[in-house]
């Protein structure tokens, strides 16, 4: 990405690899009180923690995902990194710069995609919108014109550049918001569900653009909050699962998924009610067997979810036993959890034990 101004030199202190260093970050917000509560206890204000002792190390150039249910603290973390919110305690350093002390310098290298469409000036054209923000980022004259044209082209809005933003579709506005965030040529890009308003084709193209142009070519570090499993698996080198302000797990998306799926298998059979399945549990070959609702429609065989502890050897024993009992099995495959299931599992059962990075899920056939 071209920049209109020199990037600040990072302060000494941070390691060469760690780009975002979050240490014991805590942030609380005051609780919204009713009139009655205010009148009864005018000076007793309750503060609700949004982030509790969050610590994360994000490597320069890394594509890092933030996952978690609503209210987990993802947006608060983004606001702290954008200097919109002051942390209560802990430290945050980006490129060696402290988020509180070096806020002005930090805003030159950190850029959030503010996903609210209302943050655009709807009576102005796309070009005029970017012109205003380019000026706030220090671009002037022909450099501003070039930069704006380059970004409009990049996000595919070149032909609509003179159209009033109020007449844009939701997806077009989203692309303009992304172009605006890219104006400074950021070293850290904060993306909060960036593809939620994009059609599948544009979303896929945008993910490719993020991966190739932003992360690989520019070496830009990206922090991505998403609920989209495909997005997290495709883009993120590591993800953190946040829940009620705490980091519950950090690892590669595949490692987290594997942890959730490690003992759970889907078995496709024509006789899901066979006694053999109860025998499996009684003999200790399987921990549990349950029929999945909704499976087996349209002529496909019913599916059972079986918990099989003990890895491949035990799976082979299960298959041999079922074969001996005359149960016909079409397929036994490892359960592939959705991102929501991964988050739910981590939130409910806690983080997985530390494990070495695993190959992508799609390369590991059961």
């Amino acid at each position: 990405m071209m920049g209109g101004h020199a990037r600040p030199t990072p302060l000494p202190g941070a390691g060469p690899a760690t780009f975002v260093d979050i240490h014991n970050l805590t942030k609380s917000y005051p609780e919204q009180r009713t009139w009655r509560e205010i009148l009864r206890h005018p000076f007793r204000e309750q503060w609700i923690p949004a982030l509790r002792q969050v610590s994360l190390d994000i490597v320069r150039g890394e594509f890092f995902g933030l996952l978690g249910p609503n209210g987990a603290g993802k947006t608060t973390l983004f606001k702290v990194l954008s200097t919109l919110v002051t942390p209560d305690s802990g430290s945050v350093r980006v490129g060696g710069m402290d988020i509180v002390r070096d806020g002005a310098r930090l805003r030159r290298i950190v850029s959030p995609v503010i996903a609210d469409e209302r943050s655009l000036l709807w009576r102005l054209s796309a070009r005029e919108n970017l012109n205003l923000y380019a000026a706030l980022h220090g671009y002037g004259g022909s450099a501003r014109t070039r930069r704006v044209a380059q970004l409009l082209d990049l996000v595919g809005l070149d032909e609509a550049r003179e159209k009033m933003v109020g007449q844009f579709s939701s997806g077009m506005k989203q692309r303009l918001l992304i172009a605006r965030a890219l104006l400074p040529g950021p070293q850290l890009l904060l993306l909060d569900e960036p593809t939620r308003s994009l059609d599948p084709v544009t979303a896929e193209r945008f993910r490719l653009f993020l991966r190739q142009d932003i992360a690989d070519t520019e070496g830009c570090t990206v922090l991505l909050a998403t609920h989209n499993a495909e997005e997290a698996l495709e883009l993120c080198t590591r993800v953190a699962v946040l829940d009620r302000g705490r980091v519950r797990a950090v690892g590669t998306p595949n490692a987290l998924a594997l942890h959730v799926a490690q003992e759970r298998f889907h078995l496709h059979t024509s006789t899901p009610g066979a006694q053999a399945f109860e025998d499996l549990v009684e003999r200790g070959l399987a921990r549990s067997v349950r029929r999945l609702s909704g499976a087996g429609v349209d002529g496909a065989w019913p599916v059972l979810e079986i918990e099989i502890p003990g890895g491949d050897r035990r799976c082979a024993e299960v298959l041999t036993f079922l074969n001996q009992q005359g149960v016909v099995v079409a397929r036994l495959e490892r359960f592939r959890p959705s991102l929501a299931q991964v988050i739910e599992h981590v939130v409910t059962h806690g983080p997985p034990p530390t494990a070495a990075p695993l190959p992508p899920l799609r390369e590991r056939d059961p």
Partner: protein
Amino acid sequence: MRAILAFFRANWLTAASYRLDLIISLGSLAVAAIPLYFVAGALQPLMAESIETEGGQYFGFVLVGLVTYSYLGVAVNSIANGLARSIGSGTIEAFLVAPAPLRTILAGFASYELVWTTLRSVVFVGVGVFLGARFAPAGLPSALVILALTLLAYVPLGLMAAAMVMAFRTTGPFPKIVFAASALLGGVYYPTTVIPSWIESVSSVVPLTYGLRAIRRTLLDGWSLGAVGHDVLVLVVMGALLFALAIPVFLAALHYARRRGTLAHP
């Protein structure tokens, strides 16, 4: 400066996109000077003596008073209104995450209002001159300097109003109190010498009192800047004191909003 100009351009393009509103606003202003001319003519015999040292002509006197008063709106309201609009429309986050200094963003909020008020003032004074208002052209540069100082003396009050928007999402009655006190005690419609002595002493803490008197003496009577030096000095001191008070208040409100996470909450 380029960021302030960019704000102005964006606001101008937005306003210009509502064409009919723009035309009506300018047109009505031209018409507004006409009734003022007749009212001023009727009051001239009553006011002549009390405004003897400030031009002597009541139409010019009140024209200058109203134009200067309109700039108070820029100083006191434009930053707070710009901030409130930006919070309401959701643009504030995008502005604040840019590396431009906060003072530039606030000046950007006020830039369009300042130019628009100037344009309106030119139209208003132009119609006034056409109807017979008398000015001393030689005093114009001094009058413009004093107008700028008057505006600057009121900017801290605007910052305090903006601080209230930042912290509490409302200015409360604060701007209305400033406007009412300035209009009643600052000499917009009559010289401060005609008000009862006990209230006149209160008017001595209103910056507009000094600003307006000095502007009228230079623009309507042709006094030099040195001749109104006392008023200018008081204006500068008041402005400096108010800035010294308003800047910490504004920064405290900013800190309060960042701490509570309400900076961009509508």
